[in-house]
């Protein structure tokens, strides 16, 4: 019996392991090669690089991603509450109009976006990156939260209303606590998408001191990588730059996976 079972699960494991190897191989190659020639020296080189300060880069990405994620979460949680639980003129039309932009790629509207950021005086600033990220991530997150809010029974909120709670208190004392899993999804997802975005900082940022992770990675790529020393150093750069998002992924994996399937979003 036991032998039979082993025979039937062996091929399954073989396939799963084969694909797991393919999927981790690029990272393994990067890590191994990053230690060649100078060993940890490659990492020291990156951390002491004068034009681009690693910790500054991480700080830039962190502030962009955190502010975008928090803002998107708050504004979509407020709006989803109105769209899901209140009656108001034009509500359905406005909701439809917001969702129509769900699949609109930022890349399709780069010229007007650039001129808006320029005219607002936000070129080469964190807020110049944060604003478009909020604007273009919000529709998807609104859809996810509104769908979730729809599953919370009206009667629950109605009883709070009878007890004399104000609309805003109903929002933060009932709606938000009851929706913590989906709110966490939206938070993590917007964080990851903002952290990983390349196009918006490419349009907005000018000085190296403002570069987020995605631009810093390409800054190092555009320098030559012909000699094995350069290759080792570039791999060290990529490992160091990828590390924070990998850590965030490991800690928030549950929310991220749930969030991505709940909204069925592609970034």
């Amino acid at each position, binding site marked *: 019996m036991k032998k039979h079972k082993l025979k039937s699960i062996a091929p399954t494991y073989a396939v799963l392991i084969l694909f797991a190897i393919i999927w981790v191989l690029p990272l393994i190659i990067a890590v191994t090669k990053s230690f060649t020639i100078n060993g940890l020296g490659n990492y020291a080189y990156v951390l002491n690089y004068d034009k681009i300060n690693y910790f500054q880069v991480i700080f830039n990405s962190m502030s962009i991603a955190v502010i975008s994620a928090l803002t998107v979460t708050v504004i979509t949680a407020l709006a989803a509450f109105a769209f899901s639980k209140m009656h108001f*003129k034009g509500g359905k039309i406005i909701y439809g109009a917001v969702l129509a932009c769900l*699949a609109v790629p930022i*890349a399709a509207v*780069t010229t007007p976006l650039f001129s808006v950021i320029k005219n607002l005086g936000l070129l080469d600033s964190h807020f110049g990156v944060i*604003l478009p990220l909020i604007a273009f991530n919000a529709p998807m997150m609104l859809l996810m939260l509104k769908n979730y809010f729809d599953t919370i029974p009206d009667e629950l909120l109605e009883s709070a209303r009878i007890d004399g709670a104000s609309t805003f208190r109903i929002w933060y004392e009932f709606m938000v606590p009851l929706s913590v899993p989906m709110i966490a999804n939206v938070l993590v997802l917007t964080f990851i998408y903002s952290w990983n975005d390349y196009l918006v900082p490419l349009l907005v940022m000018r000085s190296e001191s403002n570069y987020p992770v995605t631009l810093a990675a390409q800054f190092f790529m555009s320098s030559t990588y012909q000699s094995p020393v350069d290759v080792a150093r570039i791999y060290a750069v990529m490992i160091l730059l990828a590390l924070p998002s990998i850590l965030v992924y490991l800690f928030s994996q549950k929310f991220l996976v749930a969030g991505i399937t709940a909204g069925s979003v592609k970034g």
Partner: protein
Amino acid sequence: MNKLGKKNNWKAYLYILPLMVLSFSLVYYCIINTVAVSFTDWDGMSDIYKIVGFQNYAKMLADPVFWTAVTNNVLFFIGTVFIQAGLGFFLALLLKKKLPGSNLFKAIYFMPIAMATSIITAIFKIIMDPTNGALNQFLRAIHLDALAMSWLGDQKIALVSVIAVNIFQWMGFSMITYYAGLMALPDDVYEAAKIDGAGFWRTTVSITFPMLKSTTNLLLVLGIVGSLKTFDLVKLLTAGGPGRATTVMNTYLYEKAFNDFNAGGAASIGVAILIIAIVMSFLQIKLGKED
């Protein structure tokens, strides 16, 4: 039955106000501006421009590069979605057996989604380097020199390489989506199939896959959306080259706007993308509901 308060609850407008200011206004400004600019000869910077009617559209439709870009977007969609969905479905089936370690496999397949395309492309660009890249070094080491190609520099293979990197990044998404779908299927169907003596493959082809039709449709729509959004991947791996082998609509638009200073021409491509994107938004919402 009555939602919060009266028929027309004016407070609702306060709740949607921040979203309207920070998202709606900017997104719609960009869309309307793109449509408006597509009828001008604006260079994207100066204050002077002429209204040129449908000239940008006429030029776009007569431009062979535009059609190359459209074709590449379609090929990208087809190449990505079928391999990605097929592989994702297959791995989801294996993971559904819930053998020990399943969660670790899921985490590994899914991880590239959390990584920036900017970093993934950097790593693959070096791995795929024709002389120093790990891929060709490996192929030469096992005496398959003939297969050691210029993965990103050869017109014939570049698009395939770009698609392969995209599959690497997004396969986990299809896998997780199918996995969620599989988990939601009722067990009694399988019991019935077992009693009828249907084997694993038979059950998969004639029961499991058809029952996940809505998941597959959703992945198809998201594949179109994903292809339409593709920019960093191509810009950073090949910059649309060699020649025009990997140019997609977004990279062509970017080139027109920021290299050729032809904002009008870029906007006409933008409008083409926007029309498809808005249709896809509604399809995505509709299929998401069925799922």
